[in-house]
């Protein structure tokens, strides 16, 4: 495979990693984040410190990236997840921008000019392994008791609380897990680009990740996978009309929300069982339509 295509595949894998976490947070738990690029930035810089400054192996960098992002997520979650409605989303916005501005002004890590010379450790193989682990862990998590609790929180917070689910604890869990994914994605990104700059982790990066989740469908892991791959390749194919890309994204997001808010694959999975379920539902619908006709 030529190195250009390989590069896009790796980028798709990195995006997917971050999107998987966000899928858990937005798609399954119903929390909206404007600051996941901040967690990616934390992951990227932590991993770069580990490998570039301390000369430790890449795996140490990845683990440290996930761990540091998790700590930040836990603290943010403890402080803000008790808030209702908009306020959590506003808090993530403040967090993401604050992280970027701090990195911008912190000369020890390159400041706004960026940090060159991060070793190029990301390869097709290690990103593939990470993505497979990520998908398996997430699909097991959402099917577990904890996953069902998260979905209950999304569907009806008050009812979930009355049913004995500790809403704040489960929201924190979702945030921490999603931050680990974002942190690991940041680590891979840093060692793929070999250059990191606070500008790479701006608000627009956070919103792009969320857009991918929405395109793929809220509450669908295979949708997120599909969304990440398609939306990483599409701009590469459509280089000529690149400036219209975000215009189309914006319009499409509104269109999805007003017409089909669950996105492409919302609530459905592309697994043998999932497909069977979709077909069964189609049949049931058709039968119901026939019954009501005469």
């Amino acid at each position, binding site marked *: 495979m030529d190195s250009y295509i390989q590069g896009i595949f790796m980028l798709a894998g990195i995006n997917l990693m971050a999107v998987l976490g966000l899928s858990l947070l937005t798609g399954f738990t119903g929390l909206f984040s404007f600051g996941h690029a901040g967690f990616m930035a934390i992951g990227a810089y932590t991993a770069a410190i580990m490998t570039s400054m301390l000369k430790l192996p890449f795996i140490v960098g990845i683990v440290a990236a996930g761990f540091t992002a998790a700590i930040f997520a836990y603290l943010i979650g403890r402080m803000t997840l008790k808030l209702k409605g908009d306020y959590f*989303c506003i808090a993530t916005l403040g967090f993401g921008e604050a992280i970027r*501005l701090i990195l911008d002004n912190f000369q020890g890590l390159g400041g706004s000019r960026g940090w060159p010379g991060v070793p190029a450790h990301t390869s097709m193989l290690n990103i593939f392994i990470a993505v497979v682990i990520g998908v398996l862990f997430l699909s097991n998590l959402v099917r577990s008791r904890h996953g069902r609790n998260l979905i209950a929180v999304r569907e009806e917070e008050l009812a979930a609380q009355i049913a004995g689910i500790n809403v704040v604890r489960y929201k924190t869990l979702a945030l921490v897990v999603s931050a680990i994914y974002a942190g690991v994605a940041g680590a891979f990104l840093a060692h793929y680009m070999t250059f990191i700059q606070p500008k790479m982790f701006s608000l627009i990066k956070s919103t792009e990740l969320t*857009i991918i989740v929405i395109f793929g469908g809220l509450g669908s892991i295979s949708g997120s996978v599909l969304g990440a791959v398609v939306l990483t390749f599409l701009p590469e194919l459509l280089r000529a009309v690149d400036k219209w890309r975000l215009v189309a994204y914006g319009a499409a997001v509104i269109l999805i929300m007003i017409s089909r808010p669950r996105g492409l694959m919302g609530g459905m999975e592309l697994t043998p069982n999932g497909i069977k379920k979709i077909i069964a539902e189609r049949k049931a619908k058709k039968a119901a339509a026939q019954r009501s006709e005469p």
Partner: protein
Amino acid sequence: MTQFFQQVVNGLSIGSVYALMAVGYSLVYSIMNFSNFAHGGVIMLGAYFGFYAMTLLKLPFLASFAVAALGTALLAVAIERIAYRPLRMRKAPFLYFIISAMGASIFLENIVIATIGPTFRTYPEVFARTPLSLWGLSIGRLDLIMFGVSALCLSGLVAFIELTRTGKAIRAASYNIKAAALMGVNTDRVVTTVFALGGLLAGVAGVFFGMKYTVYPQIGVITLKSFIAAVFGGLGSLPGAVLGSVILGTLETFVAGYLSSQFRDLIAFVILIGVLVFKPSGIMGKPTEDKA
């Protein structure tokens, strides 16, 4: 001491423009309980409307102002019709409103980049750059007019809400939109009015902002700060939005003046996180606890 008062004057002038933007966020929040992130795009387009009215159409200053304000009012109402009304009809969860608002904001910002281009544009000089000096302070002519017009606009808004029949409907809807509808308030019209009012002020703010600095598609980053001011003052409260804006504007100029201009942008986000942690309802906001 002179420097201190100089900073206060500068802070008040930028704070008053933040206030014009912030009340737009707060007005919508008070009725619909979600943060209308598309408002930043509306402000940005207001700056462009004013710019083109002055340079292309060669309209005089006041007429350009009117064109910009009417343009953004129409735009804000159009956004509500397209992006929010279908959701409102369906009683969609608030998450969908925020996502839709985000889509609208991305759309507006990037359609400007794609059509007009990302270059910075400078307004033609309307007021002389030479500052007035009063009691030993130097006050920019533009700053003075910004402050005056903003204060006038905000008083007009308060008068409209407190004195007119429609204003009464807005107050009722912000108290409880369902009960207001049951009492015969046409809530669709209230929502349209609120977006139009926010849009009008956004146009004024956009023009001022363009005159004070420059016009470019990413003004949204600045409008984010006015949103923070609205949160700081308490989302949904108009006096809160004004107070938060003035405090934020003054703090920013103080930080830039006494510490370093690099920290100016950071202070807003530090305030934001501080407010959310210690008093999420802001200075004068409604309590955030929702009733089932």
